[in-house]
């Protein structure tokens, strides 16, 4: 059974159709990249999978681990192992990053029937993961993402992923705003989580990230449809020829 199976997914926002029939099958252990021009619907797809409620699914279905993903609330999807690294991580004043992370971890553990962790258990664990991402300890006592640099926010997303250990991780333009050093660190963090039980969807506009997180499959999303799918060489071709090439081919 596939880990994720998207069939003929149509999505509207404010009466405007954004996804116009997506079909996509992802197996555990695979890394898929979704590429496409700005505004093609990549973030919409990512957020629908994370169950953001202001998108309206008008047709189609999504099976996750054999279950109806579209019937889940965001917190249920998260507890079932779906994780979205946000393109624009949200700042939450007044909640410390440490408290947020621990609340998230304990919510997920509780759902899975595991014991909640106390400070003595989670602090060493967080510290280890932060080290992997070369993150400053001080970020833990600050409010969630508040005053973080672009790179710090993206690392914080990957840290959350590392702590929550999802089965399906969707990274939405995690590369944007990162310099090459930060990009390598983030890619390292992501690669450390690659495993046969876990699938990843790497959404990006540019090919560079894929040099470091090498995908098994690449899909090109244009105007709400997957117009082309292939192996990692497709990304290089896109880099070379630009999106106009597939767009032209798609409309031909």
């Amino acid at each position: 059974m596939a880990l994720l199976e998207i069939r003929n997914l149509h999505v509207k926002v404010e009466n405007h159709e954004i996804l116009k029939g997506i079909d996509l099958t992802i197996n555990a252990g695979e890394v898929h990249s979704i590429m496409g021009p700005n505004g093609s619907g990549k973030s919409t797809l990512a957020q629908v999978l994370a169950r953001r409620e202001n998108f309206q699914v008008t047709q189609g279905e999504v099976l996750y681990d054999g279950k109806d993903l579209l019937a889940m609330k965001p917190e249920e999807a998260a507890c079932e192992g779906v994780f979205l690294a946000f393109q624009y991580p949200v700042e939450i004043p007044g909640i410390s990053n440490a408290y947020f992370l621990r609340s998230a971890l304990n919510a997920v553990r509780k759902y899975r029937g595991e014991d909640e962790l106390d400070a003595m258990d989670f602090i060493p664990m967080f510290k280890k993961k932060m080290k992997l991402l070369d993150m400053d300890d001080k970020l833990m006592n600050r409010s969630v993402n508040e005053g973080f640099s672009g790179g710090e926010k993206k690392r914080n997303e990957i840290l959350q992923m590392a702590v929550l250990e999802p089965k399906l991780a969707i990274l939405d333009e995690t590369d944007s705003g990162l310099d090459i050093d930060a990009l390598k660190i983030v890619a390292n963090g992501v690669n450390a989580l690659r495993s046969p039980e876990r699938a990843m969807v790497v959404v990006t506009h540019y090919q560079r990230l894929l040099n470091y997180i090498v995908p098994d499959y690449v899909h090109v999303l244009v105007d709400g449809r997957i117009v082309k799918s292939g192996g990692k060489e497709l990304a290089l071709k896109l880099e070379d020829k630009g999106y106009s090439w597939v767009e032209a081919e798609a409309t031909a």
Partner: protein
Amino acid sequence: MSNVATTSRELGNYLEAFTEFAKRAPGQNQGWLRKLREDAFAYFCEVGFPTTHDEDWRFTNVSAIAQTAFRLPPEAVNVSAEQVEPFRLGGAACELVFVNGRFDPKLSSVNSLPKGVSAGSLAEEIRRDPKPLERYLGQYLNTQRDVFCALNTAFLEDGAYVHIGRGTVLEAPIYLLFVTTAGEAPVMTHPRNLIIAEEDSQATVVEDYVSLGAGVAFSNAATELVAGEHTVLSHYLIEREHTDAYNVSTLRLQQGRSASVASHSVLLGGGLVRNNVHPVLAGEGADCLINGLFIGNGHQHMDNYMLVEHASPHCASRQFYNGILDGHSRGVFHGRIIVHKEAQKTDAKQTNRNLLLSDDAQIDTKPQLEIYADDVKCTHGATIGQIEEDELFYLRSRGIDEPAARRLLLYAFASECLERMKPGPVRARIEELVNEWLFHTEPGSPEPGNAAQERALHWEEVG
């Protein structure tokens, strides 16, 4: 009569009460004190209760207070230590308990006060040694402009008298607990506090208003706090009476040169609440923090009237009020700043933020700046909003369920105010109360919003 809300029948009720009161009021043999009461009562009779035509009362209708025949409380009401126990603040330097406005020595403890600090009953002080009080009592509250202050002064009987001697540093808070016992007939109390902090002293005073039992009651409190030169003072007001209660309180701060004062107001209970905070920055280089949190639900009405007067150069004032309103509750924030002509280099800031949790909750927020000096910095801002959808989604996308995510965001909003309070027993108690009020948790329960405590946990030191 200029005022339609107060009829002669209602005034008649106060006249009767005042005539009775004048026979037994402490210090009536002191001409100045008798005159203070009589003048205040005359002003009250002249103008009556305000109506919503009065600019300062535009958003708050007090006709329910005006139309109720309140009586002064009976002489002796027996309240046991057990009844008061749940309210007490641990870790205080002393606890003064007032039952229906009168000091109750049995319930109070003043044992651990250091040298240089005295705290006790104002009525006793008036009987013991009234002369030195003349300099302060009624000298700061405006009893010829504010009807409720006038009424409080007319019925001035008891409350706390606190004196912090020169150079004295008192770390633990002075805790004042005002208990109203509601009965069959509506009672009114007029607690009057006088707090004098001499030069270079430091102290914290907490006023906590609570109810024993339901029933209509009217607390009309007034505090004059005189902060001498170079003092550092914190004042806390906690209003957590029954929703049948009316509570009007006025804090008048008089700040000397370089005096630094923080006023923290936490409004949780009471049906109709008016919280007046009136600092006058009279000495050069003084600063004040006016911090407040009001949490309304049901049909509660919470009105915060700030009047910050800059009367000297180089003074700074910071006002931050956050409101959380649910149900049909209504909040008011009226932030008035007056910068007098001589108050050059004033730095005044005002922020009022509000969260409306239901469609029927309402907030009126009004800044009012009157600036007569030319070299000043004055800023103000107000926001009214709901819980942010993107913040909620972010938390939920990490597995935190919706109710818990909402609680976290609410507590975070409240903690903006809590974090301006100095860590210690008062803040810890207020955090507990805010949790109780917001989430109906039992006292002492750790859930749900311990983000602030978590923050205090030193990440670097553990693990």
